[in-house]
């Protein structure tokens, strides 16, 4: 029983970082309908910028982190403005390839600048300290990630619920021409979502970095985040978080009770099963085109 609880808690812990990536994914998908493969690298570069601020410019950890978040906002907006927007009559696959291209460029830059070695990112709290409930451990860093994921989700949720931007995003995604005809500055909407998305991703990155920092650090969270977003329905913020916890918990329970070897892929099998039952994920209504 203790094991079960521990595994569930750990699942939630790891799920929280997936959740942050998933939230970022969902945001961009909501406005642009692109599965965003540069999500991870949009977080990676700011994380390394923070690292640089700390080590090369002697900034404090807090300044560096804020700097990174601000930079992320800028980076997201910039990528949308300078690249994604420039695509002429893009189709979804074209956009996917563009994000893959961006991914390569950013990853290339980071590895070019910093080499392939592991780095050590200082963090205000130790990643080794943990809180114990009975026999169940949760590391303070995990707890922080969990809180961050939930707070960001709620904040985004409320923001999109009560600001016009939320509907504007949805409208943009569904029919960009019509959205522009409504006077929605679709380009600006998309740019902002890219910015927010990069910032959310960077939060995830900064929380992952103290444990593990190298140029490929964001790949696994990206894939799992993508998976989580899909389970949640790709357009739902709570869905993304929920999906992330499903992925995290399944992984852990499966790893614990069934097989460690297949742990890495179990999430995807679960997804296929979920999707067979609900083709648009758990939190999205399935729209069947009417003729």
């Amino acid at each position, binding site marked *: 029983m203790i094991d079960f609880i521990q595994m569930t808690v750990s699942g939630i812990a790891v799920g929280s970082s997936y959740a942050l990536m998933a939230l970022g994914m969902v945001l961009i998908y909501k406005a642009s309908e692109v599965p965003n493969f540069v999500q991870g690298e949009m977080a990676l570069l700011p994380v390394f910028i923070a690292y640089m601020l700390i080590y090369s410019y002697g900034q404090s950890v807090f300044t560096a982190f804020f700097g990174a978040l601000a930079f992320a906002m800028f980076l997201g907006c910039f990528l949308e403005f300078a690249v994604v927007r420039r695509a002429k009559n893009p189709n979804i696959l074209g956009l996917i390839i563009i994000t893959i291209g961006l991914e390569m460029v950013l990853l290339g830059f980071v590895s070019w600048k910093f080499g392939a070695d592991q780095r050590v990112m200082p963090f205000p709290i130790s990643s080794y300290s943990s809180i114990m409930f009975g026999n169940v451990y949760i590391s303070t860093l995990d707890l922080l990630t969990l809180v961050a994921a939930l707070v960001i989700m709620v904040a985004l949720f409320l923001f999109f619920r009560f600001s016009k931007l939320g509907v*504007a995003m949805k*409208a943009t995604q569904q029919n960009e021409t019509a959205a*522009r005809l409504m006077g929605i500055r679709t380009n600006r909407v998309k740019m902002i979502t890219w910015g927010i998305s990069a910032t959310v991703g960077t939060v995830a990155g900064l929380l992952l970095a103290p444990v593990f920092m190298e140029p490929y650090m964001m790949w696994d969270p990206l894939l799992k985040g993508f998976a989580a977003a899909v389970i949640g329905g790709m357009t739902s913020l709570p869905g993304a978080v929920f999906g992330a916890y499903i992925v995290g918990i399944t992984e852990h329970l499966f790893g614990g009770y069934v097989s460690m070897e297949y742990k890495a892929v179990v999430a995807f099998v679960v997804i296929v099963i979920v999707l067979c039952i609900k083709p648009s994920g758990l939190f999205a209504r399935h729209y069947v085109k009417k003729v």
Partner: protein
Amino acid sequence: MGTLLEIKNIETYYDLIYAIRGASLSVEEGSITAILGNNGAGKTTILRTVMGLIDDQPDKGTIEFAGRRIDGADTEKIVRMGISLVPEGREVFEELTIRENLMMGAYTRRDKKAVTRDLDRVFAYFPILADRTGQWAGTLSGGEQQMLAIGRALMSRPRLLFLDEPSLGLSPLLVKEIFEIIKKINQEGVTILLVEQNAKKALEVSNEALILENGRFVMKGQSGDLMKDENVREFYMGVRSTESAKGYQRWKRKKVWR
């Protein structure tokens, strides 16, 4: 009353297709202007050009709205200046509800109270929409979607309203109502540019009309005059001396592939 919209000699290309070949048009403030024309004449293209929906077009010519150049401006900006378009093919937001769709129409407006009033007004025009506020627009019937598209445009309280075949897919009763509505909102001060296939209705309701063929205006005049024109009657209103199709002798010979 001055000229609200002034289109001078615009030319529009779709890539290599020369769709609008120098068209000029001016719309008087407070009037209803109708554009008639065959399939593919370029009516939709003119509206889309004015709205800035075709990238980098018009290729030549100028468009002025209320004295300001708008050719080459962003659609969003044009819309915010007070032009609204009911697009061909409805273009409703399929996965938004009826209410959300209508509210998108009022996206640029800040006067919440007036928006609510306008919403009620739209619901009064189209009661069926009021019954279904929570239904996804994509699952509406064709005619319902058309009503929604019109309602959505009304929600923005435009100065100038473009209607691209508003009666498309509507029942005869609703067609009548639509034209009543058009008249009414015109009386409320909205200038209207109307593209219609239903020439009779369009000419009835409009003050002035133009006929577009192959990307050029070929005829222009007061609606009343046009209605009497022989050619217009024959080609756009289908008025012929014979009675109905049932009694027709088929005159179009079928060609056999060589």
